[in-house]
């Protein structure tokens, strides 16, 4: 009974899918056909503008091609700290008297230079006293500060979701506004790009330290992630935490941030996506008027660090007051490499849904884990990791789960996936091609990311086609080629043994 019914379903599905695939091959996807207007200003700043019907709202995403990979040991966390500070205002927003503020900056920064030396000499009393002095100066500067004014202006305009994120290779600033207030964004954002003031610097540095404590130092998953990347990457800055190391954050200076800003925040290093119920002509006119006058910035230095080929398994263990976790990573090429689609399919065959191989093996059959998840990261642009995260189920530990994962990978590397497994993934891709167009903000993110990574907003919509073209043999080959013992780094978290 059951079997007959499913077979019927599958037969229907095949017919429908074949028709759908035929269509996809014959013409561009819905995404590629979007009427996106492309605009590049003389200063190199790129805009992607998309008019859409629907509620009168508009989504703005700015992607700046800067992140953790543009950092050095000693100044880790600077891209992210800068992202925080860019909400502090400019010489006109966020201040009552920028002149007087500036005079106090020089004084507190001079004290801070002395702090660094007191730290080096281990004089903790002196450090405390000097930090107290900086606090006093920052408090006295507060007389001239209009706190969180940028946020307040957006909030009063009815904005939603004003925020930013920093990743290992990009920083995104985003907000949604009622469509009739779109020009407000141009005024505020162009002011911020032209003229930021890094006020309340020392208080904000403490905020970022608290963010690090929350995301890393008190989080078992965060601790494991940081240790794993640091072990897997010995040369490439993908190994450095985007939030920064605590001791680096404590020593970053306002001058470091200002100089970093000049190097990476030129308009030529930014892409803006504007998606919503707006008039593209007006958006273009505002883009030219407000951003056209910004001078072109420096050409950001390229990241030339290259991770050497790994020549032996690496292992790192965390002991912590928490239940065990496991994380395995293999070096694989960047998302722009021809093998990237096969690796994406591999991730889906292994852990995409309840019928995937590792879910079935670990969660359903062996019951040694409650979850398993494969992905690539931490970025896209540079050679990265194919990574598997697993959550063992007590009393089973990481070792048992790890061995089962290798067994499944060996089998896949020997036999390849079945045609049925690939078919399942392909149908998901087809539906995904449509679903990904649902939200304006989501679309704006995709356009900006694709333009930044590949210089072409359409590239992201061709991924579906590339995934469709992957053969079982290609999936087998990438599993056999990359998921080897000597190419992997394994991180485990286990409960701290009694002293």
């Amino acid at each position: 009974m059951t079997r007959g019914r499913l077979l019927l379903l599958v037969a229907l599905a095949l017919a429908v899918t074949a028709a759908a695939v035929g269509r996809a091959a014959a013409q561009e996807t819905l995404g590629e056909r979007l009427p996106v207007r492309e605009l590049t200003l003389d200063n190199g700043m790129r805009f992607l503008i998309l008019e859409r019907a629907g509620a009168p709202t508009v989504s703005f995403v700015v992607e700046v091609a800067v992140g953790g990979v543009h950092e050095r040991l000693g100044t880790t966390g600077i891209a992210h700290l800068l992202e925080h500070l860019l909400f502090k205002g400019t010489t006109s927003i966020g201040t009552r008297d920028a002149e007087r503020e500036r005079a106090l900056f020089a004084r507190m920064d001079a004290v801070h230079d002395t702090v660094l030396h007191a730290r080096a000499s281990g004089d903790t009393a002196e450090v405390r006293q000097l930090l107290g002095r900086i606090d006093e100066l920052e408090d006295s500067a507060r007389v001239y500060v209009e706190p969180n004014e940028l946020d307040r202006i957006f909030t009063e305009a009815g904005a939603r979701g004003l925020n930013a994120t920093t990743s290992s290779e990009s920083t995104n600033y985003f907000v949604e506004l009622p469509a009739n207030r779109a020009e407000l964004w141009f005024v505020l954002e162009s002011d911020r790009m032209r003229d930021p003031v890094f006020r309340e610097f020392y208080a904000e540095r403490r905020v970022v330290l608290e963010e690090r404590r929350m995301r890393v130092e008190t989080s078992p998953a965060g601790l494991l992630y940081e240790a794993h990347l640091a072990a897997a990457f010995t040369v490439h800055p993908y190994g450095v935490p985007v939030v920064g190391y605590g001791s680096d954050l404590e020593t970053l200076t306002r001058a470091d941030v200002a100089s970093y800003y000049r190097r990476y925040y030129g308009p030529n290093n930014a892409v803006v996506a504007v998606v919503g119920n707006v008039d593209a002509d007006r958006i273009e006119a505002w883009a030219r008027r407000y951003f056209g006058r910004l001078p072109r910035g420096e050409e950001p230095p390229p990241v030339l660090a290259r991770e050497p080929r790994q020549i032996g398994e690496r292992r790192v263990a965390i002991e912590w007051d928490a239940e065990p976790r496991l994380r395995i990573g293999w070096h694989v090429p960047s998302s722009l490499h021809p093998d990237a689609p096969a690796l994406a399919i591999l991730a889906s065959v292994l852990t995409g849904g309840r019928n995937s191989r590792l879910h079935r093996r670990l969660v359903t059959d062996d019951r040694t884990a409650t979850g398993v998840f494969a992905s690539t990261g931490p970025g896209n642009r540079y050679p990265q990791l194919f990574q598997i995260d697993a959550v063992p189920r007590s009393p089973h530990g990481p070792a048992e789960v790890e061995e089962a994962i290798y067994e499944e990978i060996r089998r896949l590397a020997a036999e390849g996936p079945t045609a049925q497994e690939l078919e399942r993934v392909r149908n998901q891709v087809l539906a995904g091609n449509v679903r990904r167009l649902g939200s304006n903000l989501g679309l704006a993110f995709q356009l900006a990311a694709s333009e930044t990574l590949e210089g072409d907003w359409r590239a992201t919509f061709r991924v579906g086609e590339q995934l469709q073209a992957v053969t079982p043999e290609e999936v087998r080959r990438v599993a056999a080629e990359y998921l080897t013992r000597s190419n992997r780094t394994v991180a485990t978290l286990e409960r701290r043994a009694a002293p």
Partner: protein
Amino acid sequence: MIARPWVLLGSAIVAGTLLAGDAVAQTPATRDAISSLRFDAIEFEPPTPDRYELEGVQILLLEDRSLPLVSMYARFNGGYGLFDRSWYAVAFGLPTLLRYGGTESMTPDSVDAALDYWAIQTSFGTGGGSISSTVNTLTEHLGTTMELWTDLLTRPRFDTAQIELWRLRELEGARRRLDDPGSLAFAEFNRLMYGDHPVGWEMEPADLTPERLTAERFREAHRRVLCRENLILGVTGDVSWAESRPLFERFIASVPPCAEPLPEDPEPDIRREPGVFVIERDLEQTVIVMAHPTSLNLADDPSYFAATIGNSILGGGGFSSRLLARVRTEEGFAYSASSLWTTPRRHDGLVGALTSTSPENAVPAVQLILTTMEELRDTAPSRAELRTAVDRVVNGFVFNFQTPGQIVSRLMLYLAEEMPEDWLERYVAGIQRVEPEHVRRVFAEHLRPGAMTILLVGDPARMGRSALESLGPVSVLDADRPRP
């Protein structure tokens, strides 16, 4: 010795940045530019769902032909919060087992394979008072999808192997709850405040015995909740009433009338005495939660609107609210700090605050939060602060209509909760009538900083034991129940 060049370098660069700023400062100041902006009026008629009724079941439809996708929504009144503790795990797990437990005619594996194959997205969940499910599909697969979804919701198999898998996963979840200081703090705080009431329950091994989780008990919970009088349906996307009506007829025919009404939701007996509690953990950051009960309910009433705006000013409004401005922006104590004010429709709610900070700043952060609360009891907020909170809602009104799903789900909620259908409009009108003095009055009446139950998860030695005592007599809570 090296200090000199550092100072020079630092100053030179800062000056450089600001000089660059001066060069463009001749352009009109940004504030002037903003005040000279003129915004067009928004011409927007919010879409209204069409209303239908089949066999006494209400159905909301909002057509949207922009993409070849259809979403269906089902909401059943009745969740774990209405049953006694012995049913907690069954009622909590019911939505999950509807999705994973198979149907009368399909094994769990076949269901997974079919959903995968047709690339159908589903969600199944419970908020304690109701069970909800949605399904999203390409239009061309709507018939198949609806057939499958109907079976999942109305002819569940409750496969025993899947029940056991879910049971094991929940047991593991209970173990891991102690790993994350945030979730530990919230769970223990709810337990402290609500005791043996559904809000205070956390899944324990005693809830998860195989005897409590039989297929028969799942069937019983299913029978009690997934029946016709409890149901409201919705549909959005690339479909008309003529196309969806036969699908709904089949669906509703599979949902039997309710044999008995749902139980009343139990009245909570919330802890009223102030207190300071510590869960000892050797951590670099202390999680802080504080609250006391309030009797203010969601209603079309000036006090309710004043409380909503007041909460936004106190700590619910992000960077524009006082708690985040002081605890984060000024002091650098924390990444996040916010107030909470729950206003159930019946029964008491909670008012309070939460943050996380390094242990050394924990007590100063608590004191700062309490002082900030005290000030709002004594002095009305400024008109400017009030305007920020009100404008956010009024100017952002269009964000309530961004997707058809958002519009239909909201109306389904209003209908299910027997709220006025125009509640959103009433709300926006209500908050525009709030005056600063109303906010002060509602805080003076309902917020009592001295009555807070305060829970801190962290290292009391680093917080300073005498500093902690300054908040009140301190009790140590043992959260380390035996691990399942």
